């Protein structure tokens, strides 16, 4: 799952995420000349001290009181802020200048009725910010479900702007901006007016940081992270402790994947521990890690100032839902609905959280409920559309996205997905007994036969393994471009994955979408189908680490060369303690400490599967899946199903892995201390690797370069012995093959190539070379296997199909011959008639005279005098039973 989806979720919550990692920085030493400046610089204690002093000097002046209260609010001391403000109004009952502020604080405390009354007193008292109070009243009405009246009220601000444009104060312009933002619900163009009003307000008074943060939030709401980032950077340069600015910055980071949001959320919460949206975001991040109980606790902290704060309640509801706390979930949802009777925010956010937790059916149900509550909720409709597509409901998904896009034409997810849906006309659907395979029309004849056969084979294999039979049809979508696949998966471009499984819908890159050697489309399909079974067996509750691990494990079981292989980096990072323990393995996928941790975690997780089956049998894996289906957490699955404490399992796995790969761990070492400056080395290429394996490999390569072939062979053999699974193009096998070729020892060279390609799933050229070498040596079975591997790497290579077809015919592998002849025909051959004839011949040899007749007639229709085809037609007809004309 892309982290971009998270950003959409974060936006839905209008808050960001947190993780307790970094320390908040103290603001740079700056001398504030007065309380207002101290507040602006984030020196809140100074601001309070100075404002109090100012108030003591001028007790009738409301300004220092407001500064005092704002400093308290900024640090989460809402009750004190309210009291300070009320004290002033009690002393000066005829001064209405603070009632709007009092209303705002009361709203922040969840006292909506009091807030509404305070706003009214500001309006009645003709306070300088009475226009702001009017917009606040309208916002409350909107949130309370009185949408029509609220919209009428917002609409009046257009008139205010038009009639008093030149005379509006900055806060009045901001009120207009807020009104326009709400009016954008009916007319998306008014978002632009909102931004213009904000711009004018900021131009009139650039010192108000809160206003600039609100503008940034609006930018983000409309998916404009670039301007949001610029705005927030400016704010944080003045006040690095601005809680909402830090929160918004975390959202920007999530949106644009600019880095970890954690430091910003952490700062936000350090400054204002009661900020509900920040707590909500922290909870959502914990949900991502499937740490639901901690997420619920974090969300509850967001309810301290306002017990019905929507963002925190939504996060709490999500955590409760995923913990199967039905009563708690219903109570939380009811509290949200009581606060926001007609809003779809909760359902939209829950839909997104469900989708992020691979519960796509639930996501559809939540989103539909949201759209039912608020038919104008573009976000609920967008989630409904995208998740309906994920569950295979194409028409329903398109309809929802169409509606969503009309309401919010700025939404890139809806726009991209609708654009993608338009391309579906270039695809065709091929049906098999248990699958619908959608593949680009021009490649359908080539790819579908492979995908059909593999998918059906995988179904039987995986059903037997996991004891679960997903209900057909399972939909497989093979995308012609990686961008299209990415949009299909996360609504945006830039996803790094090759395939994705949404349950009973699989989407993946076509082999046409990537360069040859970048991936194996057969193993990718098998991997994704593995998810179909593990997700299905657990009702979507399998944690990602186990689902990925089992899929990789099943790849290896399907074909020896398929599946993630161990790498030197794996052993080095594992030895350095830089890979998560099994009980925390989800972190390696969801919160990787360094980029390479993700692929390394795939392999690690696959080894967990291997160990469990080796020691306890496949039944143990099935039992684990059943445990997840019943709602157990990973800890509970270890304890209740495997009867082992998580820590003990971690220890047992570590011991098993180190035994299984004892010689590898001895041959590969991290080259330098793994900690630098008290922080973990980020990994990847930054972890130099040393040890006997690489030393032998380097020596062997150097000797080969010097022409000392025999010595090179000896050295490379040592390297191979130390790490026989390393079959990359720079590894011992490739170099040994090269060395043997230099010695003209074709048999030995072929053996190395064969061994290499039996491990490396992406080595197209090496498979072709191995096939040629083995053919030369008369090893037709070996050559056939190499060519069969090759077409799963590059199905567009005519030569591979041609050789495989000819070889398969020679060894009477008739099914392969037919498949390859079909492939050659699908590749739009120049000599189409010959291709048709050869296909007909293959069918005839396999005894399928009906197909043979069909194809030979197609050949003769174009070339009626083709004598070989004529002979075949006559032969076919001569074998036809009498009367069966």
């Amino acid at each position: 799952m892309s982290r971009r989806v998270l950003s959409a979720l974060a936006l839905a919550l209008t808050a960001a995420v947190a993780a307790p990692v970094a320390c908040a920085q103290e603001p740079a030493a700056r001398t504030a000349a007065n309380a207002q400046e101290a507040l602006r610089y984030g020196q809140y204690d100074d601001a309070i001290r100075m404002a109090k002093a100012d108030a003591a000097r001028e007790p009738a002046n409301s300004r220092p009181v407001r500064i005092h209260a704002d400093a308290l609010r900024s640090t989460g001391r809402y009750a004190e802020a309210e009291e300070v403000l009320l004290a002033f109004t009690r002393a000066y009952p005829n001064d209405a200048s603070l009632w709007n502020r009092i209303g705002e604080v009361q709203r922040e405390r969840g006292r909506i009725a009091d807030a509404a009354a305070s706003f009214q007193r500001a309006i009645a008292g003709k306070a300088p910010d009475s226009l702001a109070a009017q917009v606040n009243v309208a916002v409350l009405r909107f949130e309370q479900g009185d949408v029509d009246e609220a919209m009428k009220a917002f609409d009046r601000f257009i008139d205010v702007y038009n009639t008093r444009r030149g005379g509006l104060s900055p806060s009045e312009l901001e009120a207009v901006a807020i009104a326009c933002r709400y009016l954008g619900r009916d007319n998306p163009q008014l978002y632009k007016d909102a931004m213009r009003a904000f711009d004018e307000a900021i131009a009139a008074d650039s010192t108000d940081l809160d206003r600039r943060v609100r503008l940034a939030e609006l930018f983000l709401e409309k998916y404009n992270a670039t301007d949001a980032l610029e705005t927030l950077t400016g704010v944080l340069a003045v006040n690095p402790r601005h809680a909402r600015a830090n929160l918004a910055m975390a959202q920007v980071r999530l949106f644009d994947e600019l880095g970890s949001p954690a430091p910003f959320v952490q700062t936000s919460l350090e400054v204002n521990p009661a900020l509900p949206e920040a707590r909500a975001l922290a909870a959502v991040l914990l949900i991502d890690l499937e740490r639901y109980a901690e997420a619920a606790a974090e969300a509850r902290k967001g309810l301290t100032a306002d017990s019905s704060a929507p963002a925190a309640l939504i996060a709490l509801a999500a955590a409760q839902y995923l913990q199967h706390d039905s009563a708690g979930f219903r109570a939380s949802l009811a509290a949200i609905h009581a606060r926001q009777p007609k809003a779809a925010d909760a359902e939209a956010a829950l839909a997104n959280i469900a989708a992020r937790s691979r519960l796509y059916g639930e996501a559809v149900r939540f989103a539909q409920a949201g759209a039912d509550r608020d038919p104008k909720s573009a976000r609920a409709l967008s989630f409904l559309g995208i998740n309906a597509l994920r569950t295979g409901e194409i028409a329903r998904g398109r309809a929802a996205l169409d509606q969503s896009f009309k309401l919010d034409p700025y939404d890139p997810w809806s726009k991209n997905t609708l654009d993608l849906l338009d391309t579906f006309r270039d695809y065709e659907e091929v049906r098999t007994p248990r699958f619908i395979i959608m593949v680009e029309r021009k490649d359908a004849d080539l790819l579908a036969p492979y995908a059909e056969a593999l998918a059906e084979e995988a179904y039987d294999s995986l059903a037997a393994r996991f004891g679960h039979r997903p209900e057909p049809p399972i939909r497989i979508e093979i995308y012609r471009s990686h961008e299209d696949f990415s949009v299909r998966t996360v609504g945006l471009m830039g996803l790094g994955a090759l395939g994705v499984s949404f349950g009973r819908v699989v989407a993946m890159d076509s082999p046409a979408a990537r360069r040859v050697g970048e991936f194996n489309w057969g193993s990718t399909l098998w991997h994704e189908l593995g998810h179909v079974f593990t997700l299905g067996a657990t009702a979507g509750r399998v944690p990602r680490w186990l689902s990925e691990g089992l899929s990789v494990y099943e790849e290896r079981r399907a074909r020896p060369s398929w599946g993630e292989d161990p790498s030197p980096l794996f052993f080095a990072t594992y030895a350095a303690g830089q890979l998560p323990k099994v009980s925390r393995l989800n972190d390696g996928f969801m919160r990787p400490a360094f980029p390479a941790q993700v692929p390394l975690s795939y392999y690690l997780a696959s080894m967990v599967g291997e160990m469990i089956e080796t020691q306890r049998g496949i039944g143990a894996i099935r039992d684990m899946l059943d445990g997840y289906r019943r709602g157990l957490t990973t800890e509970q699955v270890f304890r209740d199903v495997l009867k082992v404490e998580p820590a003990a399992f971690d220890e047992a796995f570590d011991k098993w892995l180190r035994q299984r790969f004892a010689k590898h761990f001895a041959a590969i070492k991290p080259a330098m201390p793994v900690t630098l400056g008290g922080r973990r080395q980020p990994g990847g290429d930054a972890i130099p690797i040393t040890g006997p394996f690489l030393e032998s490999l380097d020596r062997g390569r150097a000797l080969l370069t010097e022409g000392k072939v025999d010595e090179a062979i000896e050295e490379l053999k040592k390297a191979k012995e130390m790490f026989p699974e390393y079959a990359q193009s720079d590894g011992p096998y490739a170099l040994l093959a090269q060395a043997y070729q230099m010695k003209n020892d074709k048999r030995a060279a072929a053996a190395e190539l064969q061994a290499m390609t039996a491990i490396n799933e992406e080595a197209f050229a090496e498979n072709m070379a191995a096939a040629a070498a083995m053919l030369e040596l008369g090893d037709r079975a070996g050559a056939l296997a190499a060519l069969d591997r090759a077409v799963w790497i590059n199905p567009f290579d005519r030569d591979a199909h041609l050789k495989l077809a000819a070889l398969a015919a020679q060894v009477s592998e008739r099914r392969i011959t037919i498949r390859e002849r079909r492939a050659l025909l699908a590749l739009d051959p120049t000599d189409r008639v010959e291709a048709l004839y050869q296909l007909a011949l293959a069918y005839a040899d396999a005894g399928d005279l009906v197909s043979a007749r069909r194809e030979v007639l197609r050949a003769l229709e174009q070339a009626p005098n083709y004598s070989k085809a004529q002979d075949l037609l006559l032969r076919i007809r001569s074998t036809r039973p009498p009367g069966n004309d």
Partner: protein
Amino acid sequence: MAVPETPGVGVKRRGDALWGYRAFAVLSLTLLLGGAPRPVNAQAVPRTHMLIVTGASGEPRFAQQFHALAMSLRAVATSGFDIPDSLVTYLAEQTTPDPRSISGRSTREGISQAIDRIAARAAPGDAVLILLIGHGSSEGDVSRFNVPGMDISDTDFKAQLDKLSSQVVAFVNAASASGDFVKTLSGKNRVIVSATKTGFERNETLFAGHFVSAYVKEGADADKDGRVSLLEAFAYAKREVQREYESTNRLQTEHAMLDDDGDGAGRADPGARGPDGMVASRFFLQPAVGLSSAAASDPRVAELLATQSRLQSQLDSLRLAKGIMKEADYEKALEDILTKIAENASALRALGVRKP
């Protein structure tokens, strides 16, 4: 348009209404047109003349490549297609690579003289293939083929081709920037092929290699009649060029064109049914398959050939009805006719007719 009277180039007369569409497909029908089979090597069989020109190479690798292609085509023409050595002229940048095979240098004058010689000895109805392999250029209204010395332009060639007005001429400019030759040289009984669509496609071309391969390798004979027509060679080369660009992930910078209806506008997708492609579909380098004297005088052969002609006509009619008839009816009728054709062909082969 009129179908040219070019006995060696293809079939010439319409036998019935369908001939306009595919009379050319049945090679042996040439034997029927006079009412009786004609033995092979009879007098009046038109001859094929070839002029292969490799231009200024610029680099040794191009010189080697051009020469290899020219020699390859020359070899298959003289050995495989029985074109007399005397009718094949190969002009090159230098004669040194193979003085016995290279007739002279490919200068502007050398080319003109070679065409003059062909014009002098070619009989009406003879076929002439002129193939240019090399680099071209285009500036303003003038397109040129780069040769040693002064380049030769499209208008130069126009003047030369006018000397071959009674022959069927296939002019294949496989050089870069050759597209504008089509407009200049287009004419009656002429097939003009360019490797590029316009003079602006100036990168080195792949077309020549694949065009020669169409005759040298297997795979271009799309209708399996045993010969490769110029149309088939063009289609083969065009497709292989496209495939090579695709397989190497390059943007295609050459788009071959063919014109043979005389309108000066080339087409990328000519077909045997025209408007462009009809003449090319009947332009062959390989000789038509004929009958031995014994077979030609065998009345059973004549009857079988007549049957073959009738069945072929029926097939043509049926194919025209495809899409109108019910699919099942079409398939059944198709199988019936194709079976009869196959049986008839088998009977002919039994009588020693190699390729009916």
